[in-house]
């Protein structure tokens, strides 16, 4: 059972297994197969921009559809098909493109159940790539999950490793609410143990990725990996870090975060998003409201700066929260004095 799989293939396997299990699962997006209408007559030339949907078209030709470059129409079509009883998985190639189709996500899919008085379900999954690191510049490197987490009615999933990627995606496909599923493009090659059989990971249950007693780090997606590196360095310095990976930021497993902070008394949040109205601020404020008395030091947020993602490698490398910056923040809260005034 120690089969290793990349994050990319874990995602791919989840879709294969769910399509086999449930005929109502369909997959649509730009070049998720690729090649339709091309002179080679090859109907699965790409299998997705980075290959996540490979093999689906060949296996399920009628349930896998390439789309024109019309995100409003095809994301909306996925929403409509979900309302009509299908379980569509729509691929929004880069989350950066949400600006041309956001309405169908937050005004339509997200609100149906509530607006219609509970008489509707919209089981659609929108898979999307996010994050910096590939020198893809300002319009292909954004994180943006805070925008989705703000919207009631959406669930927001951000796996940090191959095992979670598979289990969370299968869960997402079976869930009855609209889900935005974030895949960090710099994680696709990450390998990890992934069982062959189908399994699910429930939403709203954080994973304690590493146990520790001095400082709690809350991180999602690629930032979990960066935090693990930082934790190693810090361990060598005698600082024991606990890393909490919420896995889904909406719903958010607040209890596990509070419990961890109760134990450590210190909190660092690591978020690849921009700082303002971010996931980092979300968790920081919740703890300052609901677990305030556990805090023995100021909270600390490590985020990307409040600037677009720069192209040049020299700048992009500074943009992404690094293990070094994370470690520095942890050292910072270790050295902070407890409440001066109280």
């Amino acid at each position, binding site marked *: 059972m120690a089969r290793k799989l990349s994050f990319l293939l874990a995602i791919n396997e989840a879709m294969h297994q769910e399509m086999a299990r449930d005929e109502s699962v369909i997959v649509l997006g730009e070049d998720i197969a690729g090649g339709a209408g091309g002179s080679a007559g090859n109907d699965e030339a790409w299998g997705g921009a980075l290959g996540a949907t490979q093999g689906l078209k060949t296996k399920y030709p009628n349930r896998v559809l390439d789309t*024109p470059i*019309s995100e409003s*129409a095809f994301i909306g079509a996925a929403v*409509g098909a979900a*309302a009509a009883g299908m379980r569509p998985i729509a691929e929004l190639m880069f989350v950066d493109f949400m600006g041309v189709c956001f*309405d169908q996500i937050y005004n339509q899919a997200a609100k149906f159940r509530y*607006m219609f*008085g509970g008489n509707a379900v919209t089981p659609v999954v929108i898979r999307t790539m996010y994050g910096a690191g590939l020198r893809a510049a300002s319009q292909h490197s954004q994180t943006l999950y805070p925008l989705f987490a703000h919207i009631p009615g959406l669930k927001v999933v951000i796996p940090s490793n191959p095992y979670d990627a598979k289990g969370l995606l299968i869960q997402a496909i079976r869930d009855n609410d609209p889900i935005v599923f974030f895949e960090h493009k710099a994680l696709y090659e990450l390998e990890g143990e992934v069982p062959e059989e189908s399994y699910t990971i429930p939403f709203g249950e954080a994973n304690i990725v590493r146990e520790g007693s001095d400082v709690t780090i809350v991180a999602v997606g690629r930032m979990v990996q960066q935090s693990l590196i930082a934790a190693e360095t810090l361990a060598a310095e005698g600082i024991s870090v606990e890393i909490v990976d919420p896995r889904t930021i*909406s719903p958010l497993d607040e209890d596990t975060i509070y419990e961890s902070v109760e134990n450590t008394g210190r909190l660092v949040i690591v978020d690849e998003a921009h700082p303002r109205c971010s996931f980092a601020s979300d968790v920081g404020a919740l703890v300052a409201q609901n677990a305030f008395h556990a805090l023995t030091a100021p909270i600390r947020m490590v985020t990307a700066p409040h600037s677009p993602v720069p192209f040049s490698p020299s700048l992009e490398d500074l943009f992404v929260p690094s293990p070094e910056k994370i470690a520095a923040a942890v050292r910072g809260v270790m050295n902070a004095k407890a409440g001066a005034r109280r």
Partner: protein
Amino acid sequence: MTVTAELTQEQLLRGYRTMRTIREFEERLHIEIANAQIPGFVHLYAGEEAVAAGVCASLADTDWVSSTHRGHGHAIAKGCDVKGMMAEIYGRATGLCKGKGGSMHIADFRVGMLGANGIVGGGPPLVCGVGLASKVRGDGTVGVAFLGDGASNQGTFLESLNLSAIWKLPVVFVVENNGYGEATGQAYHQSVADTAKRADGFGLPGITVDGNDFFAVAEAAAEAIARARDGHGPTLLECKTTRFFGHFEGDTQTYRDLSEVTEARASRDCLVSFRARVTRAGLIDAGVLDAMDAEIRQLIDESVVEALAAPFPDASQLTTDVYIKY
């Protein structure tokens, strides 16, 4: 005229009932709103009844329609419960959406009503989706998107024309061209006289009919819907019509010469022409229609009375029907 050939007696009666119900519903709301009894923004469909009724004449409960901010007519034509609608518009717990949606969000998936929509152009992509579901399942259901002339400039609609054409989806786009998007005339907001002309550039048929004529709409829609059901793909059907009231209740309408409305009421009222036609042709007795009118008036009366007597949703409803945890 293919009245008898194409439409059954039952379809005719249903068509009239639908149109009259919409008219009574809307005229009554117009009064109730003036009485300040109704919260929020309300957009009335009166004048355009032949479109909703004519199109839905060929649809079953298992077919779907997406609607607009001006959605009462579509909801009634698609079979939504009238009392549930009225209660919804009054914001009551007994409303179709428990009072959470209101006039702009009436929906009932059980009868294929995908929802009124507060976003202009919100519906066409959704209807591509129900068409896609039909196609994948092969169940022969059809989706219809109603939209206005103003909405026909929205990218979501234009993209949907292309998507439905390349996928040959079983859908129909019905443009209700009442000549205005809010206070802006069609002559300003687009450079073509017939919105249906847009179909050409996407590879689907585009047809323009008199939207005040139930028979013209019903016939063209029947053909488009049959075409969709038979797997031949989408159609764009433009119906030219007139709204009797303002864009929303409260609109002073200084942008149009109100003779537009008086003339439409006098000479292009779908109910009047329908009645004249079927009685003259001896298809339906005037007495039958009169009885139906009375019945409908009573239904609307009761709807208002019951809505006013119904409770508002209680506090516990604020955070149900949505994922909440905090």
